[in-house]
């Protein structure tokens, strides 16, 4: 009768889904490339939450290694992406994604 409410894997996964959706919405709505990168980071964090939720579900710490590896990849992605942003800004003078329409013809 007690414990009408217990946080468990379901709640963690739903939380990850919410964060992922917010990141995806930001990716569509925003135009500033730097903010777009932040939204990608949010989505990567949602993936990490999912992995850690299953790590907790199965009681296996080895999953957490995967989550650390994802963090490394996210760091590389952010560094390279921001270097690209700087290069784009140097040549085009803008960081707005809708003004980078060179391929539009």
């Amino acid at each position, binding site marked *: 009768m007690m414990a009408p*409410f217990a946080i468990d894997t*379901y709640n963690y996964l739903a939380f990850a889904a919410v*964060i992922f959706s917010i990141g995806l919405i930001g990716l569509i709505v*925003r135009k500033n490339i730097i903010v777009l990168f932040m939204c990608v980071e949010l989505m990567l*964090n949602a993936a990490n939450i999912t992995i850690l939720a299953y790590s907790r579900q199965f009681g296996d*710490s080895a999953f957490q290694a995967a989550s650390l590896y994802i963090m490394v990849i996210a760091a590389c992605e952010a560094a390279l992406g*921001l270097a690209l942003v*700087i290069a784009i800004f140097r040549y085009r003078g803008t960081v707005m994604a809708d003004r980078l329409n060179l391929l539009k013809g």
Partner: protein
Amino acid sequence: MIIKDVLFLIFAVISAVTAALVVALKNPVSSAMSMIACLFSIAMVYFIMGAHFVGTVQILVYAGAIMVLFLFVIMLLEKRDVEEIEKASPARIINLVLITAMLISVIAALAVSLGGPGAQAAGITETFGTIREVGMAVFTKYIFAFELLSVLILVAMAGVVTLSAKDGER
């Protein structure tokens, strides 16, 4: 246990709100600040889940290093162009509806497959999520991926230097 549950709810709400602020705020610096708050509260969620080492790395690497990198880049770029977020183009509304539908269906599928809120997790042992356990996994079973990642970091470093150097300085 109930304290953990309440803390999870608090930090989940904080991180969802700050994530929404990342999307909603117009100034990129404000976005970065709320991103830092969001990453901190996600780290708190990691702690609550028992992944202490990953939470610590989250604070050090994400909130510490990556967001400082973001702020530096924002600082380097002049604030020349103002972003206008148009509200109600039909494509955007369709997108938002689709994403919301995706979110709802994911949560519903989770509820069906995991038996809804309150599904049982495996017992968490004393050593779950400690640096020792995670380090054993990283340096024994997954050592190859670890070494590959160090190569990846090296390549990323070289790429960043090449990309951000001016034409004459390469």
